[in-house]
């Protein structure tokens, strides 16, 4: 791995929440006088974060609202102090935590460029040299001499982004600001980010645009409830987040077993032989065996159930389905059933996959219950970007 530019170890961030913060002296006295008001609740925005980010990585920091992403970014940027833990950052940082943070509304764009760049650590000489390029990137033209209070929010962020990227940072921290500009500008920003990636710079951004994470990042980190829930492949980070958010299963398939229509899907295991232990690798061309355990409970209105197992890729894209056949369905009789399904010839899929199991009414095809299993198995570690890895031939002519 490349040299670490950001190292955070054991980082905790605790916020103490008073009903109302006692910043005035009188309130402090009053609060300490009657102790019970000091019933401050503690809240950990970050819990025991360990993360090492190497030079040249592009990291997408994703998570639900209030998960602690922005707090983490601010700690890395040196704006907030961790309650405990150590953060070490090597190199010049440019942070875009808010559109045009630090702009003074009364000053012109030009004056703000100089001020903002100076705050980010640039000398006047350097800004002189970069000024035209900044203006060009921001697309402000002659408007650069207007007070920024007359700018639209899009123009604000364009100028802010233009300055931040011209600071020539070693590390660029971006917090959900790219969404503001129009599409043309967004494209330009992405091109700039690609340029940064090629120059070996480190980029860390918080975003809710999950497709951007899959598209741009070399690594995805999912933060939820102040903890890192997943750290690794961006596509899987996105899948993990969708799982947390519950946007991964339109039919509302839960992770936990749930009794619906008198059925409970107890378990589903992918293995390389019938009834074998769970595997984390299935080679292409070999068999995939899936054993599903279904309980049919005592009750009325039981129907014959067709079991369907869907192999899902990153982002829970359904790739292929295995089904029980007529005559092999789960009967409408209470009891525990073991269903073995087999895919005799695993196609050359690339990446990691998980199983989604549903039981359908065999007569109508309507889903009765569904459940998702997040135990993943790998098929091929090929280049990302496609689901199938097939032999190809190519010729190049002059």
């Amino acid at each position, binding site marked *: 791995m490349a040299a670490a530019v950001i190292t955070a170890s054991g980082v905790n961030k605790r916020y103490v929440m008073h009903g109302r913060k006692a910043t*005035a002296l009188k309130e402090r006295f009053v609060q300490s006088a009657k102790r019970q008001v000091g019933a401050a609740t503690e809240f950990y925005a970050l819990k025991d974060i360990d993360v090492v980010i190497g030079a040249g990585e592009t990291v997408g920091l994703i998570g639900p609202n209030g998960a602690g992403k922005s707090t983490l970014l601010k700690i890395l940027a040196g704006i907030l102090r961790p309650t405990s833990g150590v953060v070490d*950052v090597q190199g010049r940082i440019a*942070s875009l935590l808010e559109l045009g943070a*630090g702009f003074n509304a009364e*000053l012109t764009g030009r004056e703000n460029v100089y001020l903002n760049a100076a*705050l980010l650590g640039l000398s006047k000489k350097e800004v002189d040299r970069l000024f035209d390029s900044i203006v060009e990137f921001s697309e402000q033209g002659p408007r650069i001499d207007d007070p920024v209070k007359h700018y639209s929010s899009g123009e604000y962020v364009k100028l802010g982004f233009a300055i931040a990227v011209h600071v020539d940072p070693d590390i660029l921290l971006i917090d959900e600001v790219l969404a503001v500009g129009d599409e043309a500008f967004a494209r330009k920003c992405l091109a700039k980010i690609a340029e940064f990636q090629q120059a070996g710079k480190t980029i860390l951004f918080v975003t809710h645009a999950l497709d951007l994470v899959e598209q741009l990042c070399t690594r995805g980190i999912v933060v939820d409830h102040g903890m890192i829930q997943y750290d690794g492949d961006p596509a899987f980070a996105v899948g993990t987040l969708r799982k947390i958010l519950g946007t991964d299963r339109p039919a509302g398939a839960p992770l936990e077993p749930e009794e619906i229509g008198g059925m409970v899907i107890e378990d589903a295991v992918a293995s390389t032989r019938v009834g074998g232990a769970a595997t984390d690798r299935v080679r292409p061309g070999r068999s995939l065996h899936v054993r599903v355990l279904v309980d049919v409970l005592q009750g009325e209105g039981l129907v014959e159930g067709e079991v369907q197992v869907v192999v899902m890729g990153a982002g829970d894209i359904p790739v292929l389905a295995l089904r029980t056949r007529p005559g092999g369905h789960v009967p409408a009789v209470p009891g525990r059933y073991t269903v073995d399904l087999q895919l005799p010839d695993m196609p050359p899929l690339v990446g990691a996959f998980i199983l989604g199991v549903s039981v359908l009414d065999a007569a109508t095809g309507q889903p009765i219950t569904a459940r998702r299993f997040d135990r993943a198995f790998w098929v091929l570690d090929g280049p990302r970007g496609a689901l199938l890895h097939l032999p190809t031939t190519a010729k190049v002519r002059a």
Partner: protein
Amino acid sequence: MASQTVSEAGDRAALARSRAAAQGRIRWELLSLLVRKDLKVKYQGSAIGFAWSLANPLIQMAIYYVIFSKVLDNHIPAYAIYLMAGLLPFSAFSSGVVGASGSVVGSAGLVKKVSFPRLVLPLSAVGFALVQFLLQFVLLLFIVAVSGHDFIGWNLLLIVPAVALLVAFTTSLSILVSAINVRWRDTSHFVEIAMLVWFWANPILYAGGLVKDKLNAHGVFWLYFLNPMATVVSTMQRAIYKEPYYTFQGKAKPLLVDAGYALYVRNLAIGFAISAVLLLLARAVFNRLQADFAEDL
């Protein structure tokens, strides 16, 4: 080949470290930009702009002059000059410290979103006050010269240490109050009132020589100069006003704190020592509190 890569990586790491350090350093350029920003924002859209900063002390001087010299008839010759020699540095001190006390809180948006050396905030507030002081002071010297008041001499050299002490003490106190005000917002209100009281602890309107006689009777005159601003004010008067006595009912009365120089030098030394201690304390407090600025705002 491998060793070359290692040394390149080493260079890169060293470069990265030096660039990270540059971001945390206080730079004059940044300070001057911030001061110019404050000046521009303050006087933007006003017709006479910066002249307003001269109007304030001139009007203050006119009022004090009329009341103390004409109405109360204090017999101090060229009272206007005596007055300005003390009033201008104290105004600079007062506006610097008051401005600095709200400087971090007033830049909440910046502090919460951008990482930069927070110390530039109180420092730029002090810089803002000093720029105004320098212009007012040049105007004062011009008025003194035009009025024909005799002030040329070695005494003028005292201006240098007096202004230096003004800068040192104002800066130290400003750093302290700017940080404390983030945690306890009462600070800025307290500072404003303290300045009203503090004003009278200096021989600005009254004759320092009279205070000397009164306090010397109890042997506590030295206490008076534990206030570095009293040193700044009295030294400025010695530098510009020059005339140590005034005549009242046929008798010579002491006007300045001292007619010689030794006392001023001693006072300046005390003032610098106090400022140095205060600066160390202020830096320590600021460094301790600044890590939580973004959270406390």
